[in-house]
């Protein structure tokens, strides 16, 4: 936790500094633009919609019954699974969300107790500042004020850059479709939330290992659980800061990297890595024409001068010849 606090503090510092530097950098222009040194454009800091919802998955509670997978499949009218939902053979390999499954549960060996394997539910984490939405050139993604990140297939042209950008390897693509391929991912049961219901997976979970609520409440709850059961949980809420924070949070009894969670992603929202470049764009757009136009003009000017000189010299020579 210390590390996290430090990080966020440092982040704040660097932000104020870089914002102050911004005008200076504007003046410096030139090479540093291309080096992408401009860290912050003058953007308002947005720490997420207030009161947005989230989900808290308690990985110590999950027993791998796959009820969430089943409920998700039914609610979202996804095609029936190739292997029935009560079949344990699927655990043999690690799965990921696909065009036919918004969520999957994977099994990991428990180092402390072989009889109690650990399960990890994988689905869209609904980032506070989603990389997919930042990456999409057509704005097909929306981060709703309620928390879910939604995708509109009517806009998508299928570049799949969102899949490249997602730090959690979530969006799946309908490669088999030639005419209507689309991205498929969890929508946190946006419709159900709007209707006052809770997401289908959370409703189906017999242990309530998936808890739906306001993200802020869930963070408090997670902290309390960790504090009251220090032997049961490691001291880390995955998703509180990762990739700028996600709506979906996890608490676990073993370090997250043992469960294949990406753990080396920075606490900055992914788009912040690109902002330096993006803020250089208008500068290049305006300065380049002036710069290269001037170079062109000055060279032509010199050429003209030389030509004039040459002509003058010729005239003088002619005059000399005449005289």
């Amino acid at each position, binding site marked *: 936790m210390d590390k996290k606090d430090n990080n966020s503090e440092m982040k704040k510092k660097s932000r104020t500094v870089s914002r102050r530097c911004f005008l200076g950098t504007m003046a410096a222009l030139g090479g540093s633009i291309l080096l992408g040194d401009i860290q912050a454009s003058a953007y308002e800091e947005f720490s997420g919609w207030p009161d947005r919802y989230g989900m808290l998955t308690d990985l110590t509670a999950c027993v791998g019954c796959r009820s969430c997978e089943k409920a998700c499949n039914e609610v979202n009218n996804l095609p029936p699974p190739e292997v029935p939902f009560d079949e344990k053979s699927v655990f043999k390999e690690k799965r990921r969300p696909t065009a036919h499954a918004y969520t999957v549960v994977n099994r990991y060996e428990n180092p402390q107790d072989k009889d109690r394997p650990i399960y990890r539910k994988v689905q869209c984490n609904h980032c506070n500042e989603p990389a997919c939405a930042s990456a999409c*050139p*057509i704005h097909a993604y929306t981060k709703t004020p309620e928390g879910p990140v939604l995708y509109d297939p009517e*806009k998508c042209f299928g570049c799949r850059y969102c899949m*490249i*950008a997602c730090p959690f390897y979530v969006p799946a693509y309908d490669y088999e479709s*030639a005419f209507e391929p689309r991205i498929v991912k969890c929508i946190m049961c946006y419709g159900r939330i709007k209707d006052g219901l809770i997401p289908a997976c959370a409703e189906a979970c017999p242990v309530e290992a998936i808890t739906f609520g306001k993200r802020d409440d869930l963070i408090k709850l997670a902290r309390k659980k960790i504090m009251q059961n220090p032997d049961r949980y490691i001291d880390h809420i995955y998703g509180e800061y990762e990739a700028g924070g996600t709506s979906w949070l996890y608490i676990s009894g073993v370090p997250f990297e043992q469960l294949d969670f990406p753990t080396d992603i*920075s606490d900055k929202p992914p788009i912040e*890595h690109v902002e330096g470049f993006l803020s250089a764009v208008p500068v290049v757009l305006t300065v380049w*024409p002036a710069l290269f136009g001037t170079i062109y003009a000055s*060279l032509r000017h010199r050429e003209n001068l030389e030509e004039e000189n040459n002509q003058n010299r010729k005239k003088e020579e002619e005059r000399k010849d005449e005289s």
Partner: protein
Amino acid sequence: MNHSDSLEKSVDFRSWFMDKLLMGQTWPEYMRTLVTPFNILAAVILSIGLPLIAMRFMYGLTVVTHASNDYPWGLFLGWGLFGGVPLSATGFVMGTAYYIFGFKGYRPLVRLGLLAGFLGYLFAVIYLLVDLGRPWRIYYPMLIGYGTASVLFLVAWHVALYLTVQFLELTPAILEWLKSRRVYRWATMITIAMTIAGIILSTLHQSALGAMFLIAPGKLHPLWYSPYITVFFLTSSIYAALALVILISAIAARFLKNATDNNFLGNLGKLTIGLGKGTTVCLYVYFVLKVIGIAHGNHWDLLATPYGYWFIIEIAGFVLLPALILTYAVKSKRVGVVRFGALLAVAGIIVNRINVSIIAFNWKLPDHLHHIIPPWPEVAVVLAIVTIHILIFRWILNRLPVLREAPGYKAH
């Protein structure tokens, strides 16, 4: 009256057609010139590749690629877009050198650069169309939704605009071919404006292609992921362009002699050395930048890993080595060696872009190296597109005044 008029017109058209498209030959004559070993090879490649492209559009991407949820991009973009665009910087580099900086001696190579650039971008778009899920929506970033925070949005706009700019830059050549005068004068007047527009668009989207990976720091291997990746991409595109002009001008001089003139052939050696010089400088700059990149991220320890070895091979074997070869070749004025160095530099660009977009991307996923091997249909499609690219390039070089000057037109 009417009848003879139309007859005259059809005769006119016939002679125009023979003159412009068949290069002054009759159909049988023209057809006979087409039977060459290269064309036969091209026909074989196309007869495999074109049906595969058709299948891709009928049955989806899975038929020809191994694209998957973890590996959304493959050879089409890795080779066609990320490899193709830096090599297509030829138009911007040669145009800037000639029109803005006044390197007037390079006139015989300027149009070659412009044409290579235009076709390069055109085919980058074609690779993209093959790869896009719904290619008929290609204009969506321009009309339907504006993802202004997306680097790809920027790339889409810039490539579209730049394609137009490059076409306009080439119009003088087309108009000379069509023997137009009036429009020609208009076309030459916008040259400087178009060239500067080309510089803006090129600097931005060449670096933007690198910036596309900035959003995925955890996925790209740290030796290739760098906040400086935009500079790497831009710098390397400049030497890629110079090296590619060296190569294609050599190929043209060897295989398309009829399309050239003495001005081109006579100056080529000297110009090749000059371009070699430029390439060398850029290669050294790029090499130093790459080293600074490692120092900046303090990734020295990673050099001693398998990916590190591969990284060393890339920057020692495909950047430093061609730089050294070119240094020697330029000093001793050996045109052949310059060309070899340029070939190595071009290969290096492709290696780098494939590394960034395919080999070092997703490096942490299990079985990664197994996943990135493309299936044969994907390779066959790429080969088919490359073949079409070459055929069209050759078709234009044979007809338009690119490698030669059109009689009666002054340099502009």
